[in-house]
């Protein structure tokens, strides 16, 4: 299998299209014939990253790369950056507004869910610049 890469632009506050990138990513993995367990992990991680970009960022992108050993998701945005990454990684912590919470978002589970679904998770955030997340899911025999 050659390396495959897809880029998805994510707009701030675009709740109408929110989830479409994750759905496309899931379809791609399905077409590649990966097993349902790894597809679920990638789909959840991609969805949470996509929703974070819609809710919290000034827009950004989700990139997926698939090589024979792993699936990698890059979520990069154009700010505003996270003040306290350690706090943001805590289950239940959220800075989402009441309006967003009423829609069922802002449970403070996004980043923890992403980490749980990844074999390797890294996050870097610079205030006013952006947040940069890399998630790797390693393919095992049978995936």
């Amino acid at each position, binding site marked *: 299998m050659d390396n495959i890469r897809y880029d998805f632009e994510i707009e701030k506050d675009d709740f109408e299209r*929110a989830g479409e990138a*994750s*759905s496309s990513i899931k379809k791609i993995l399905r077409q590649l014939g990966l097993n*349902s367990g790894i597809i679920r992990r990638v789909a*959840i991680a991609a969805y949470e990253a996509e929703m974070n970009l819609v809710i919290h960022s000034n827009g950004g992108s989700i990139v997926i790369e698939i090589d024979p050993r792993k699936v990698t998701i890059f979520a990069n945005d154009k700010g505003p950056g996270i003040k306290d990454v350690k706090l943001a990684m805590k289950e239940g912590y959220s800075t989402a507004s009441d309006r967003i919470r009423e*829609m*069922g978002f802002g*449970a403070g*589970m996004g980043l923890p*869910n992403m980490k749980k679904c990844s074999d390797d998770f890294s996050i870097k955030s610079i205030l006013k610049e952006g947040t940069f997340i890399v998630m790797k899911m390693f393919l095992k025999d049978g995936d």
Partner: protein
Amino acid sequence: MTVGEICDKLNLEVLSGESGLERNANGVYICDLLSWVMAHAQKDDVWITIQSHSNIVAVASLLELSCIIICEDAEIEDETVRKSAIEGIPIVSSKKSAFELAKDMVNLGLGS
């Protein structure tokens, strides 16, 4: 049991996504926090919620849930109806509370 059979037996109103009525339903998940649903609901679960904006269809589709039941007559957005038709995820409306619906599902033998 299929989603269609559940709707017939419980007299539930199917609002859209009829192409998914043949989907298999194996369990039930009840929650209104989308990230929580993402983390815990399982494939083929019936999802009961009061959330009714269009993003619920993305969640259900990604997790391959069998259908979404909007309980307590919560108002449903047109965009949700449109998306569920595209994805083939049935959206079902009910006057009942999540608890009452859960009891109905248990009585039908769902999840056992």
